[in-house]
């Protein structure tokens, strides 16, 4: 990815560019203040129907994790095959608001994953299209 080129995102509605990089974008209920991710039109907590866009941030701590050890079936579309599949980490990352966001993790080595560890948001290519173009999703990586 060149710096001057906008990356192709699988989920552009979930991300917003910030001065320092990227932030996850969710929603906040105008009635009860509950935060949701992804944003939705109504609040699952209080049934309110006024939900505004809300920046969830790009830093958190690991709340739980696993390693995806087998190639998922469709609709997974990474383009990998049984022979090229590489296990990937999945976790919930607790954000400053207390909301836990489910995300791919950049590492899949259990020794590098610990509940409570600080994590940072990055964009990660998860798919290479037949023409060689990469598609990005959000992921969290341990802060060294």
């Amino acid at each position, binding site marked *: 990815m060149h710096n001057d080129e906008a990356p192709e995102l699988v*989920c552009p509605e979930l991300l917003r560019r910030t001065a320092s990089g990227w932030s996850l974008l969710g929603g906040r209920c105008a009635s009860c203040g509950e935060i949701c991710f992804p944003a939705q039109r109504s609040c699952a907590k209080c049934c309110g129907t006024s939900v505004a866009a809300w920046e969830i941030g790009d830093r958190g701590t690991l709340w*739980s994790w*696993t390693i995806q*050890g087998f190639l998922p079936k469709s609709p997974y579309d990474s383009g990998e095959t049984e022979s090229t599949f590489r296990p990937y980490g999945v976790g919930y990352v607790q954000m400053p608001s207390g*909301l836990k966001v489910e995300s*791919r993790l950049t590492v899949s080595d259990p020794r590098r994953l610990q509940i409570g560890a600080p994590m940072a948001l990055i964009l990660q290519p998860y798919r290479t299209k037949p023409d060689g173009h990469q598609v990005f999703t959000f992921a969290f990586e341990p802060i060294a």
Partner: protein
Amino acid sequence: MSTEVAIIGIGIHPFGRTDQLTGLEQGAFAVRAALRDAGVAWSDIGVAFGGSYESGNADSMATLLGLTGLPFINVANGCATGGSALMSAVSAIRSGMAELAVAVGFDKHPRGAFNPKPADYGLGEWYGQTGLMLTTQFFALKARRYMHEYGISEDALVRVAHRAFRNGALNSNAWRRRELSYEEIAASAPVNLPLRKYMLCSPAEGGVGLVLCGADRARRYTSRSVALRAATVRTRLFGSFEVFSPSLAATQAPAPTVTAARAAFEEAGVAPNEIEVLQLQDTDSATEIIHMAENGFCQDGEQERLLQAGETEIGGRLPINTDGGCLANGEPIGASGLRQVFEICLQLHGQAGPRQVPGNPRLGYTHVYGAPGVSAVTILERRFA
């Protein structure tokens, strides 16, 4: 509730792989067996409820059983499909809609993990495309967090699977009938750590049917029935930790299993320590451990000691999944909840053969959990005419 409902007939099609029969045919097989057990004909049935996840509409079964014109309602509630069909049948009898009702669940899944569609659960396509929409991931993520909070070890995960396959070896209707060694389970391939191959159930095939009537009428049909002291279904509350959740709220709420169990114990007027044999959803080892506490059978963290002491074995104080559970029977989604009820009926009537719980148990319990956050519970009591 005013009118008590009883199970007067039970039938099963063996779980596992049956290449020559469709899922629907396995469901019809189970219903025929249940009708024989009750000594009634399909034409006597006043209403039926049933479902499968991916083996077609239950009401198509009427073509196989006989087109008698009865109301046949299709139920689709994930892993709780069987429990929901049963609750619906109970409600129909209580309302006076019919004297005799059938509840049936069946399925026949292809090999490998389930691959649900995000749109069916109100989720964006990205969630499936990027590899987050897997039930096994959820079980692993909930397991990891629970083990961290309550000090459950990997040894406990192995012990649950070890017992499941030991019990399954005693069950002629089970799919996996080979007893696995502790070492074999502990060293099996990682699927979604901390869960390994033999700690997770596999999609499979099977069917279960039940015949029900008002408990006061049961003796017209049989000398031995099982009364449904409670049959409850509850869905998730805001903040509970559920499968297919792109995020979890800051403040956690109790799982639907907790609310379904409380409602069932209240409806039955029974306490958890009175239950003598029980079935808890064991899509994986850790889930069964968590469900022990969520259903009220122990405190969080106490499972480790109960498993070590053998309390959950067939001869223990709290015999769990005596038929081998989902781990040994596999998971045909529509059928699993009713398989649990089938097993408890056998146990309460002393018909469970080599896996019979000693002491002539009178009260049993079943629990299923399914996507996107629904639990179904029954409390069952042995009755003689």
